[in-house]
């Protein structure tokens, strides 16, 4: 087994080992050791990720691992129409796109593991928590490293299972278990569509290997099977439908509009879980899926515009719902939904590297914000309602500074990461080939409004927690260094993160990320150029939206006073807190009728069919009974039967011979 090919494949194996060890021997380990073990394993994976990154960055082709085995039965009819058995191989591939994702996952994952050691201090299920976290990291790595859709699907559902386990970590409370169950079921709806997408892809391309599909646009040889000129024209119907299925799958996982109700409830899990899974990694799996199958989406204009529109609508929906939330984590949850909308706009517009760029930057500052709210909750003894907080600037100095950096970053203020990625998104949608004549500009405008709102609610979040006087009745104290160190690292990343994707006007090849992802996720063709001054105006407008948002929010708070939650009282506030009533409509429109039908079917099946069969059974028995009545016991009645039988038969014969 040559070493350099299979080294990267070890990445998911290490956390999986950690999970196994902690599940079996976790109980008899004293408090911090499971945390340390888990974190060190994730750190080792991070090292492997860096080694992989170094190994793969010069290569053009993806690096395939050689240790493969048959996983799924598959038959393909070759040129002569004869069925050839070509089972799907369980294998991994590392290319530029997946190596970036591995870096994000293992990097942020490691930081959150360290933070969690402090956060989960004293919890009864300490080792169980870290077992599940390691399991999640392993599954996410499988998802990212998979070289075929079914193996990707293993990671896909694996992270679903991990999120189910982690959301319902404190299972004794009915609310948490219900939230976990709801998350899993909504994810499963998305997975069902993803499955349908995979089947349609196999039907059109006769293979489920991602790289073969991406490279099969235009006629190309599919190694040792057949040379089929794919004839899959640009925008042909099966391609569009497949892309749509993939979109719905991604929407399920990344909580986009039709299937976005589960993410806010997922906050029931511990905060490191929300940070890792529901901010940085799992929810971005949908974006990764679209970026990974760039070949399909680049050749499916209709579907891509759908992706953009869903992204835009979700962004607006997320932003509007986040404004009036009172729970510190719910605000960030809706903010994540809105930011994910942004990423979908990016990948929908055809600039896949922009999507990944925002995934990276968002991972930094959203993880930072979640962890800082974690340390705030930890400091005020578990209180999550922002109305009971305020004035923590003095008591929690480090958390305050890092939260300020995070807020400015997400708002998109100039030097920080958020600014660059948000600007790249807006300019890419402005010039996108899929924008058509109207929708490109409309979505750009929505993007601006959302940038304004984002800055607004983030500033509200910052000021309600840190400015004004302390309204709660606990006595907050700064968290220990094991929690603040990751915060500082994340803060640094949020500041520096933006520089990997500098805008074009600073020079042609200054943007490292676009160049790096040239082969792994090439942009769709047909981006129309805009002059330099056009770009400058776009950047200016984006910056203006961000600053305006912050000033507007300061003005509102100054007007109604930092302690009064002025915005919440208005009817609009109430609608926003209820997340535009989407959740309630789902319950009424979908789950209630489904439950009712199920009960009726159960009744019909256990009793209805029984009566039917029962009726048939005693029907025959009744026939039997009537026969015994005919058995009257009189000799002459029997003789009559004999005589009539003879008469009829002989008569029949006579007639027959007569006719």
């Amino acid at each position, binding site marked *: 087994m040559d070493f350099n090919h299979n080294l990267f494949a070890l990445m998911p194996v290490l956390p999986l080992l950690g999970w196994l060890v902690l599940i079996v021997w976790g109980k008899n380990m004293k408090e911090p050791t499971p945390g340390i073990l888990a974190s060190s394993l994730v750190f080792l994976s991070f090292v492997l990720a860096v080694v992989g990154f170094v190994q793969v960055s010069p290569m053009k082709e993806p690096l395939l691992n050689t240790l493969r085995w048959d996983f799924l039965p598959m038959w393909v009819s070759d040129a002569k129409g004869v069925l050839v058995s070509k089972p799907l191989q369980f294998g991994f591939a590392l290319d530029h796109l997946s190596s970036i994702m591995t870096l994000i996952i293992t990097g942020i994952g490691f930081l959150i593991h360290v933070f969690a050691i402090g956060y989960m201090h004293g919890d009864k299920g300490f080792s169980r928590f870290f077992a599940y976290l390691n399991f999640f990291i392993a599954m996410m790595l499988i998802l990212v490293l998979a070289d075929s859709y079914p193996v990707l699907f293993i990671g896909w559902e694996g992270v679903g299972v991990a999120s189910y386990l982690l959301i319902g970590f404190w299972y004794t409370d009915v609310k948490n278990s219900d939230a976990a169950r709801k998350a899993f079921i909504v994810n499963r709806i998305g997975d069902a569509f993803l499955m349908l997408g995979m089947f349609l892809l196999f039907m059109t391309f006769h293979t489920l290997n991602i790289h073969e599909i991406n490279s099969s646009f235009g006629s190309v040889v599919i190694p040792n099977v057949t040379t089929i000129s794919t004839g899959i024209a640009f925008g042909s119907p099966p391609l569009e439908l497949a892309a749509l299925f993939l979109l719905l799958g991604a929407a399920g996982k990344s909580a986009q509009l039709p299937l976005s109700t589960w993410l806010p409830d997922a906050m029931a899990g511990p905060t490191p879980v929300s940070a890792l899974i529901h901010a940085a990694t799992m929810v971005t799996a949908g974006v990764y899926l679209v970026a990974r199958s760039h070949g399909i989406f680049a050749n499916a204009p209709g579907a891509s515009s759908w992706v953009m529109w869903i992204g835009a609508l979700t962004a607006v929906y997320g932003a509007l719902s986040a404004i009036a939330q009172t729970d510190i984590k719910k605000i960030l949850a809706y903010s994540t939904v809105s930011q994910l909308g942004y990423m979908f706009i990016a990948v929908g517009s055809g600039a896949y590297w922009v999507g990944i760029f925002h995934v990276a930057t968002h991972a930094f500052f959203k993880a930072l914000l979640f962890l800082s709210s974690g340390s705030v909750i930890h400091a005020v003894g578990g209180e999550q309602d922002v109305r009971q907080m305020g004035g923590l600037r003095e008591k929690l100095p480090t958390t305050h500074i890092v939260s300020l950096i995070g807020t400015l970053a997400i708002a998109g203020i100039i030097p920080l990461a958020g600014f660059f990625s948000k600007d790249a998104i807006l300019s890419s949608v402005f010039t996108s080939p899929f924008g058509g004549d109207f929708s490109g500009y409309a979505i750009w405008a929505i993007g601006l409004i959302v940038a304004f709102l984002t800055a607004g609610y983030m500033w509200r979040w910052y000021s309600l927690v840190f400015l004004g006087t302390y309204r709660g009745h606990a006595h907050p104290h700064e968290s220990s260094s094991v929690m603040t160190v990751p915060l500082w690292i994340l803060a640094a990343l949020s500041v520096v993160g933006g520089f990997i994707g500098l805008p074009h006007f600073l020079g042609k090849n200054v943007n490292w990320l676009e160049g790096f992802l040239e082969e792994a996720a090439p942009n769709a063709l047909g981006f129309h150029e805009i002059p330099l001054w056009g770009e400058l105006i776009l950047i200016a407008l984006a910056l203006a939206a961000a600053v305006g948002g912050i000033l507007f929010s300061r003005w509102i708070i100054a007007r109604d006073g930092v302690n009064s939650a002025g915005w919440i009282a208005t009817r609009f506030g109430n609608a926003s807190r209820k997340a535009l009533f989407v959740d309630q409509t789902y319950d009424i429109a979908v789950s209630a009728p489904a439950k009712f039908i199920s009960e009726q079917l159960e009744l019909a099946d256990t009793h209805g069919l029984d009566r039917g069969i029962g009726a048939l059974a005693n029907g025959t028995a009744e026939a039997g009974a009537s026969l015994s009545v005919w058995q009257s016991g009189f000799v*002459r009645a029997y003789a*009559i039967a004999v*005589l009539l039988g003879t008469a009829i038969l002989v*008569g029949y014969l006579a007639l027959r011979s*007569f006719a």
Partner: protein
Amino acid sequence: MVVFVILAVLAIAGAIGTISFKSGIYSALSLVGTLLTLAMMYVTLHAQFLASVQVMVYAGAIMVLFLFVIMLLNESQMSGADPLPWVQPVAIAGGIVLAAALAFTAFQFKAPKNLETATAALQGGTPGAIGETLFTKFLLPFEAVSILLLIAAIGAVSLVHRQPAHNEALETTSEHATDNAYSDETSSNPAKVVA
């Protein structure tokens, strides 16, 4: 031909008499009449020996046995309503249909040889001829019939012999049996028996 018509009419009259007379004796006597007419018919059909056997065995022995049993049981007139009133008309209709169909098929019979040559081989059905066929070509049925008569005799004896069965178990069951035999009989018998 005239002889045949007379004999046929007599036979049918006798048959109708057997089935219509209420009292047993009259129907038995009318049956004897039919048998005698049939014997005469056998003579016309070149079966003299059979005719005599018919008269002696059938009319003589069997009918005497019948009359003897009818006397023995001196059963009174049939009384009470017929539990199956619908049987009579249906039976008559069925009988007529049967008779018509059979008669019709009978007239479809095509004689294989002409009568004269066939009757010659019969040698008039004299005892000698019949005896010869009986003991040569027809020996097995002849012997087999002996078993039939043997079992008839033993059967009749055992039926009678049943009563004084000498084992105690049966004793009890038989008394017990006969009593309840009548008790449930009369109750279940729809026809009210005139004591």
